[in-house]
């Protein structure tokens, strides 16, 4: 899709291992993005490293992540995390401008936890201070 024709973006693999598989698809009509996680296991390690590449369609002086976790259509968890704030730009990419291409490779400071067996849907949204979408993804987590 060149600029939001009807076509959907391809489904990507964020990581795949023996027990865990994470797939995602961009739900931003304007663009796809790239994402991967350095390891994938039921016993999710803390401080994972990720790779993330995208074109910014908005300034990100402030940037927030909303995560909504579902299983079989019912919501389990909603979570909002500030990534860049005016008084605490956590990462080097905070403050980049609309039109810039950014690539982040590094730790995300997550806590470690065990993923219970099951299939989950995750809706991820990155948006800025004006609530404009920076990225949007439908992810599927399959843990066996």
């Amino acid at each position: 899709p060149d600029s939001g024709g009807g076509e959907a973006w391809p489904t990507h693999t964020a990581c795949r291992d023996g027990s865990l598989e994470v797939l995602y698809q961009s739900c931003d009509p304007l663009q796809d993005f790239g994402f991967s996680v350095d390891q994938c296991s039921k016993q999710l390690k803390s401080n994972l490293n990720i790779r993330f590449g995208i074109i910014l369609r908005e300034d990100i002086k402030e940037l927030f992540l909303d995560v909504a976790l579902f299983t079989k259509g019912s919501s389990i968890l909603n979570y909002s995390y500030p990534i860049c704030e005016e008084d605490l730009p956590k990462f080097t990419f905070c403050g980049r401008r609309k039109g810039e291409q950014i690539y982040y490779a590094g730790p995300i400071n997550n806590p470690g936890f065990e993923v219970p067996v099951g299939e989950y849907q995750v809706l991820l949204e990155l948006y800025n201070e004006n609530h404009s979408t920076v990225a949007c993804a439908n992810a599927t987590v399959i843990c066996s």
Partner: protein
Amino acid sequence: ASCRVITSLDWMCSEKEANKTYNCENLDLREIPDTLPDTTEFLEFSFNFLPTIQNTTFSRLTNLIFLDLTRCQINWVHEDSFQSHPQLDTIVLTGNPLIFMAETSLNGPKSLKHLFLIQTGISSLDFIPTHNLENLESLYLGSNHISSIKFPESFPTQNLKVLDFQNNAIHYLSREDINVLKQATNLSLNFNGNDIKGIEPGAFHSKVFQSLNFGGTLNLSVILNGLRNSTTQSLWLGTYQELDDQGLTSAMFEGLCEMSVESINLQQHHFSGLSSTTFRCFTGVQELDLTATHLDRLPSGIEGLSSLKKLVLNVNHFDQLCQINAASFPSLTDLYIKGNVRKLDLGAGCLEKLENLQKLDLSHSDIEASDCCNLQLKNLRHLQYLNLSHNEPLGLQSQAFKECPRLELLDLAFTHLRVNAPQSPFQNLHFLQVLNLSHCLLDISNQHLLAGLPNLRHLNLQSNSFQERSIPETNLLQTVGSLEILILSSCDLHSIDQQAFHSLGKMSHVDLSHNSLPGNSIDALSHLKGIYLNLATNRISVIPPHLLPVLSQQSIINLSHNPLDCTCSNIHFITWYKENLHKFEGSEETTCANPPSLRGVKLSDVELSCGITAVGMFFLV
């Protein structure tokens, strides 16, 4: 074979202000659409396709002031591209893979002020044509390949106020580099994300800046030694989560002893061996930001901070407020301890030495207290601003803020409050103007809750619930006749007594949105005039004719997302609405719910024709 698309098919630029401001983003346009008026002044044209910019590209739009060409795959900006744009003030070229800009490519504008060349592949400053930049005030060069900030001699720097080099490859600053900028006064210079490894001694000697940003530099001694004998209003030296951090030592700050700096930010660094002498060279500093510097205490008897005015200690690891050893900065007026990572115990009198404190932010810090707040806030006689929002439950004594008689703003949002005494915990805050009690789970039925607040102007009670889902005639608002702004959104209200607001004569802004109020609740506002009235998302279906005058006398009204009735039983209101459209906010979402045939139709588009007996109805879109 080139690839042309007939643009008129695609064109859907949106108008922001008629004849002036247009947004044509993301439309895959290959030229300026004919439908754009000649008079356009502000044009957002990002994410289209314009490989070559030349003098014909925008020639029709002679009034352009602001032109955003972000990521249009521009390779070339040819001669005289803006020759017919005398008013042009801002050009944004961010994200274009520029191959060449002609010497005269920026000629034309009488006073070009802002130029954005972020991520355009620039590797040296002589890529930028120097003609016609005499009036340039800001130059954004972030995310390029620039390794030297040496401007060509012909570059006019005298009016520069903002020079942004963030995220380039600048590793060394020479004396000559900085000298070229000496004509610029009040310059803000941004080297964030460059990891500068060397500064020629004396490079900054007797230079004066508005702000300097060396964020993300790994070795701060290089910076602070290099800045000797310079002056800057603000100095940003923070780092970032994903960078390795060496740890700040006292020695690194040596250079500061010979600098004049008003405000310093060290966010996200670690301190190695923080001691009472670490800040020895900070004597002139007025503001110090230590956000997220992994502190669990500040040593006692710190030297160098005795004249500090503002201290930011957000997102640190204190257990107890006394661990900041407040006595080291007796001149403090502003203290921020927001988002403390551990549960923060307020202790007793930990801030009592801060006699001049005016602003205190303790929000989001997991604070819990059963008997608040006089012991905790002991001696803060001059405190004007207190933020305790987003904490754990607090029990408030009567006159809980007696120690802070001059409070003007008190924010308790999202902190669950228990009021331990029958009297008002806010009693006698004679100067209090703003009180935020949203999401406090308060017992609103206590009529004395707000007693003794003679100057309260702004009261936020969002998401507190009233007994029986109603505001009775006698209620806690009667004691605050000075109120101008009242927020009662999401209070689960189903009704309001006609007399509920009778003592509130000064109101200018009433927010009753997100409740379940019917149309006749409007009666409670009949004594008010010229207010902003938000009734969005309620249960209003019919507004009886006798209440129309009440609405008529207000200045702006929001009735969006109500289940409005569009049958003849509501004909008076609908007719009046359409005559008074200018009064309404959110009219796009002000739609019919009934009859089913009209569900979702904008009220402004409904055409009713009602006789004494209803004879029919229809609508025009």
